């Protein structure tokens, strides 16, 4: 069995007699994204601060790669701690320093790199997070969202092995939220760090999470993959997750997954025998788009796809929801396979005409060099029967997916 990277064993923490963490047992594994959720005041930030060493447990032990922290020598603990970066909930930017100085600060203080190299690395992170125009500003001159991105740039500048994100997307608009989450997943893949994140941005955060830890009543209510969390049937936790999910996906305006399930159940309930149903699973390769166009353009493609699908298919009685980071499932009631195919075909033409200019503009802004990118949108159109679960429909849709629309951002350069 894999040894957890970080393990909490019977950890209890009290503040002024109030127990915040009560005999907690949990594991965080290497190279995964672990998301911690829970109501306010359930000790999520306290838990992260224990990992960082900012707080020490009153009872119990924390283990790093199987070794108890309290038995480590100072040098050994310091070596572990240097691998960890922390993104504070309130950003904790050094307010007497500019954005550039804030981002470059950890490199200046902890490395022997040259001044030019430090500035180059800091500027790279600043550019990645689209903060170039704020480089000479002080934190108090920035919006809350920009401050959050500066804090994120500072946390990632040292290429840490473990990054603890305390509500990284709070205060951001839906596009920026997805950008930040895309960035986290992108950097996680690129640099291979382990991410531990506190976030309430359901469903987006679950699309990128390998494991979920739900803190409940001072303890761990659930620990494992998100899909299993939904099957727990613990009423309080279930209600909490639904309340976070809401009825609408903030990024695309589509139905939330829960609302989609309700629509689907209602449709089946009202079904008449011999009624035909079909579905289409649309998808874009968000990771490839991110690499090619940057976070903003990648999220814009997804947003445009969702908005178009919503507008186009709602008018004919269809309903859609995002079921993974970059997949949208649409159900067409009362349409057979052939009719659904025709609908998707006509949708793809409208998509090409409507979205391409927008994407071109963003791509042009992000790609100063004369480069050209192709964006492929795929769809798998299938006929469904009332016995099919949503998961089965998605599986079938994936198997049938083919390119339905290509957008070429012709900027006059070479095709990538």
């Amino acid at each position, binding site marked *: 069995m894999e040894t957890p990277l970080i393990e909490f064993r019977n950890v209890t923490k009290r503040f002024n007699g109030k127990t915040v963490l009560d005999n907690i047992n949990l594991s965080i594994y290497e190279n995964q994204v672990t998301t911690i959720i829970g109501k306010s005041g359930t000790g999520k930030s306290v838990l992260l601060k224990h990992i960082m060493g*900012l707080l020490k447990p009153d009872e119990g032990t924390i283990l790093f790669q199987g070794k108890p922290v309290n038995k480590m020598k100072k040098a050994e603990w310091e070596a572990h701690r240097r691998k960890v970066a922390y993104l*504070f909930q309130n950003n904790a930017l*050094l307010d007497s320093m500019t954005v550039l100085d804030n981002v470059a600060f950890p490199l200046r*203080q902890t490395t022997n790199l040259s001044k030019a190299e430090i500035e180059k690395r800091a500027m790279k992170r600043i550019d990645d997070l689209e903060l170039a125009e704020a480089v000479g500003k002080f934190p108090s001159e920035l919006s809350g969202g920009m401050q959050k991105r500066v804090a994120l740039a500072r946390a990632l500048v040292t290429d840490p092995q473990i990054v603890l994100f305390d509500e990284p997307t709070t205060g951001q608009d839906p596009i920026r939220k997805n950008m930040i989450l895309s960035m986290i997943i992108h950097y996680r893949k690129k640099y291979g760090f382990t991410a531990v994140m506190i976030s309430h941005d359901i469903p987006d955060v679950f699309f990128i999470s390998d494991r979920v830890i739900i803190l409940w009543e001072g303890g761990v209510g659930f620990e494992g993959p998100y899909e299993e969390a939904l099957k727990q049937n613990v009423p309080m936790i279930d209600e909490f997750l639904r309340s976070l999910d809401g009825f609408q996906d903030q990024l695309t305006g589509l139905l939330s997954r829960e609302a989609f399930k309700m629509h689907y159940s209602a449709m089946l309930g009202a079904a008449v025998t011999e009624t035909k149903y079909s579905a289409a699973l649309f998808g874009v390769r968000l990771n490839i788009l991110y690499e090619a166009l940057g976070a903003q353009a990648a999220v814009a493609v997804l947003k445009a796809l969702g908005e178009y699908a919503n507008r186009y298919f709602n008018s004919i009685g269809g309903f859609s929801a995002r079921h993974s980071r970059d997949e949208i499932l649409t159900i067409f009631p009362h349409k057979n396979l052939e009719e659904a195919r025709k609908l998707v075909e006509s949708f793809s033409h409208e998509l090409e005409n409507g979205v391409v200019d927008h994407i071109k503009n963003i791509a042009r802004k992000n790609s100063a060099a004369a480069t050209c990118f192709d964006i492929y949108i795929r769809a798998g159109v299938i006929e469904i029967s009332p016995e099919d679960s949503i998961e089965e429909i998605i599986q079938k849709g994936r198997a049938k997916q083919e390119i339905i629309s290509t957008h070429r951002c012709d900027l006059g350069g070479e095709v990538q």
Partner: protein
Amino acid sequence: MKEQDEKKRLPGNENEAPYEKGGPARAGVLPSRGLSNLWPVFFAFIGGWAIRVIGNFGAIAVFFFLAFINIFRSKQIREITSQVYYIGAKSSLIVILVGLFTGMVLGLQLFYTLVKFGSVGALGSAISLSLVRELGPVLTAIMIAARAGSAMAAEIGILRNSEQIDALYTMGIDPVRYLVSPRIAASIISFPLLTAFFDLVGIIGGYLTGVVLLGTNAGTYFYRVQSSLGMVDIRGGFIKSLVFGAIVSCICCFQGYFCHMRDDGFGARSVGMATVSAVVISCVLILVSDYVVTSFLM
């Protein structure tokens, strides 16, 4: 927070504890056996207070030791230089002003006193000795404590309350090394220099009133200054200013650094209270240590 918890458990911080043990007093009723039951309460209070004070002094000593050894780590020169500029160079104007008027007042007062004894020629000696031995180091230290010490406490306190100190720790930077050590080093460098400045300007101030205004002989004044001041006086003043520099910077940084653990306020109030405590404690300790150092030097 853990430190807060631990602090709360210290006997000195358990305000209710003596009353709880006293039984009826807990409900606001005096103990039945009268004053005899108040003695334990009294001694518990004194004992708790003494433990708290001794504990704080111990904590300050450890804090100073950790900060002092970190002065000699790498990457400190830039920070120390900028702190010398802030604590030293930026305080020079106020030190010059205070030094000038202190010298001028001394010139006036001593002139009229010495005239009564027919020894106005000793004006230069009296002014220079009192400035170099006592007034220079003490007044300079008090002025810098008010100007730079309060700023140190407030700045570090705000860094603490906005989690910037925690952020330093998470970035692998020792907050004591980055924030406290340069300030202590800069104070130890700046205090003697500013004291020398103060002494010099004070002697000139005495010259302005004693010689220019009241007509004492200029040659006599400067001859007396030169002949009465020995290396031992200058060395004494120098040692005092070193001690004051260490005390003021350590107290002010300590108050700011641990402002989140204060019992008398949280948030912005704790920063305000820490700043007040920093200046008051610094001034008191300057005078106490002045006596101690003087008695060793004599």
